[in-house]
């Protein structure tokens, strides 16, 4: 039993934290939020050079990490700084799916993903699917040796910036069957693919994706026809580790900002942190924060484990972190008062990151239900 980071991960954490503290200031980040692209190409490249994307891939895949704990270390730091750049979508999801299913030819894309020159997006969710991973209505049909995709994909994060979209479509079965789902590598400029882009409340951009008889070569399929579901769930689990760790980092920042504010803000002639009611609420937040940290450790540590344990700990962590996240974001805003209601104050953005993480790959109730289903089987 050992809860210390390895030296490599400690270095990764230190260098990432140093970079973000120096370069990813509130002002820089707020400018990114107001930009048309929703992310900074410059910072993206610099972080790629720092090896942050590589840390999310195994050595086999061309990186030097890729395990649950690597994801957790990276995303905790991204969360601390409220980073909006598309590490989750391009690397953990997009790159991760290619790494898991791609042919050698397809995997050559990973080098560009890792060096930051190629961005990806995962076009999976659909307007009616909510958080159900098997709810795929988009169809893929063979036609004269080509694959033809038709359907709609909802809230595809980072779609506009992506060179390729990884699109899920059904080759067989009914809408909610786990069997019959395939993944396809779709170049952004493929005819029939159209995007309606928009900004996201917590930063970054997404798009509604329309697939109108998108015709692809047969070699665009990732992996075996109709067998993508287990890999989708595995990558959704990795995304959940990332989201939970990001939320943990964001909660650390929220509590640090609040601690500092309580120590300095004066009302009634003394720092508001000297009022016991606020002290006790702060103490409760710190207690829950340690719970969240443990939940993230459990989830990260089981990401490479057998699927049942993995899913159980993912569900537990996402549920706990979602509950804690709501408490921390609401309470830290309340403990601040008005200042935290302003867009330019750091906590405003951090609170949005925390809350909106609850809307990706399942919210608190979704994961509670998953946990109940798993623990009664």
């Amino acid at each position, binding site marked *: 039993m050992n809860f210390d980071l390895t030296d490599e991960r400690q270095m990764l954490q230190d260098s990432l934290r140093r970079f973000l503290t120096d370069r990813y200031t509130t002002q820089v980040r707020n400018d990114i939020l107001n930009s048309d692209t929703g992310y900074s190409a410059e910072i993206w490249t610099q972080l790629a050079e720092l090896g942050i994307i590589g840390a999310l891939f195994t050595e086999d895949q061309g990186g030097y990490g890729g395990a649950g704990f690597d994801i957790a270390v990276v995303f905790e730091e991204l969360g601390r700084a409220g980073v909006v750049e598309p590490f989750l979508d391009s690397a953990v999801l997009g790159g991760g799916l290619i790494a898991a299913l791609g042919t050698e030819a397809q995997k050559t894309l990973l080098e560009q993903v890792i060096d930051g020159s190629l961005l990806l997006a995962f076009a999976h*969710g659909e*307007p*009616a699917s*909510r*958080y*159900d991973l098997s709810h795929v209505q988009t169809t893929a049909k063979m036609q004269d040796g080509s694959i033809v995709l038709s359907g709609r994909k*909802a*809230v595809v994060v980072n779609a506009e910036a992506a060179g390729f979209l990884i699109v899920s479509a059904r080759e067989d079965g009914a809408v*909610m069957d786990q069997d019959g789902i395939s993944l396809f590598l779709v170049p952004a400029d493929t005819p029939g693919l159209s995007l*309606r882009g*928009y*900004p*996201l*409340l*917590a930063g970054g951009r*997404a798009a*509604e994706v329309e697939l109108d008889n998108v015709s692809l070569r047969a070699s665009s399929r990732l992996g075996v026809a109709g067998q993508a579901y287990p890999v989708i769930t595995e990558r959704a689990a990795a995304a959940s580790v990332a989201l939970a760790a990001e939320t943990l980092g964001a909660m650390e920042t929220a509590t640090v900002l609040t601690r500092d504010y309580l120590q300095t803000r*004066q*009302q*009634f002639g003394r720092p508001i942190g000297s*009022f016991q*009611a*606020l002290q006790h609420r702060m103490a409760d937040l710190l207690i829950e924060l340690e719970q969240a940290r443990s939940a993230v450790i459990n989830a990260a540590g089981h990401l490479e484990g057998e699927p049942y344990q993995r899913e159980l700990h993912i569900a537990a962590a996402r549920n706990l972190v979602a509950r804690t996240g*709501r408490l921390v974001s*609401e309470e830290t*805003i*309340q403990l601040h*008062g*008005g200042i*935290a*209601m*302003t*867009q*330019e*104050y750091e906590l*405003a*953005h951090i*609170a*949005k990151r925390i*809350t*909106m993480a*609850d*809307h*990706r790959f399942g*919210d*608190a*109730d979704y994961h*509670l*239900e998953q946990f109940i289903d798993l623990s009664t089987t």
Partner: protein
Amino acid sequence: MDLSFSAKEQAFRAEVRGFLADKLPPELAQTVRDGRGLSKDTYERWHALLNEQGWLAPNWPKEFGGCEWNAVQRHIFEDECCRAHAPRIVPFGLSMLAPVLQKFGSKQQQDHYLPRILSSQDWWCQGYSEPGAGSDLASLKTKAVRDGDTYVVNGQKTWTTLGQYANWIFCLVRTDPTVKQQAGISFLLIDMDTPGVEVRPIILLDGTHEVNEVWFTDVRVPVENLVGEENKGWTYAKYLLTHERTNIAGVGFSQAGLAAVKRLARSQMHRGRPLIENPHFAARVARAEIDLMAMSTTNLRIISGAAKGQAPGVESSMLKVKGTQIRQEINDLARRAAGVYAMPFASEAVEGSNESPIGPEGTTHVAAQYFNNRKLSIFGGSNEIQRNIIAKVKLGGGA
């Protein structure tokens, strides 16, 4: 004990409902129902319609052109307006300043300002909070120094709601810095076109421009703009705060919000069934509804007492806390119900664009509203201040 409204009250409700059905423009109601931000014009249009009916000032005495409705009538009116998705009446002139002028203002001030409030000639905003004086309002620093027939005002106000629309501001200013905090404060009316007044927007975390900073640099205000006596402003401010507290529970807003959550949860599918049938989500909705049913009765109990002349005391603080908790919980339910479609940032839509929304109906503004309404427990006397008040009354201890 009788939980039903009297025949007279029911007739009044029918009258209000009829008026709203006739006169509230449907596109205006739709804007409110969608949770979109309202323009100055929209507010003024609604005010004009109400004024025409003689219903713009429910709480004013008849002598000033008001309805002089009792607490139950006002409740019925507000309730029906919420159900019909009418815009709220902007309170700064009508519900906040006017009662102060009616009680403490000079005849001249009453004659001049009150009609201009009803006609929307003047749009008022409130200059209370300052950057260093939030919960501790009495520590305010904006000062007014007497110089002949004028006060010279310097300082800064903040969280001034809809200040960008206003041409007048009523302010608490410090006129005597040598005495105990509350004792040296005066209540001043300031024309915002006076040189030296500057309004700077504060953008809230959901991207909306609702509140402002108002800066005063050597602003010269005629002494006749002083309300009541110099250095007695705190008394008037406290009087105003009790009047601000009508509809503090926000029952109508919560009822409309909960209805919207249910509509959304009936259309959103989860595991092949409407979300509303999911027991975990249904439990959240049910608890909120049960809490709201009880609070609605608490509200009626206090209103019923007020209509008989009982002064609401610590109950206002209780309603403020519980009312905001319920409204915020309903906002949270709405963002949950929206699922992935809570994520888009509909900044254009907030400002009133006509582009089609991104997600299904009812999802566009839920996350922004969730964040925006965090203000409910902070502004207007934070819930912590309310708990201090309750504890002081009930335990007699200091903070």
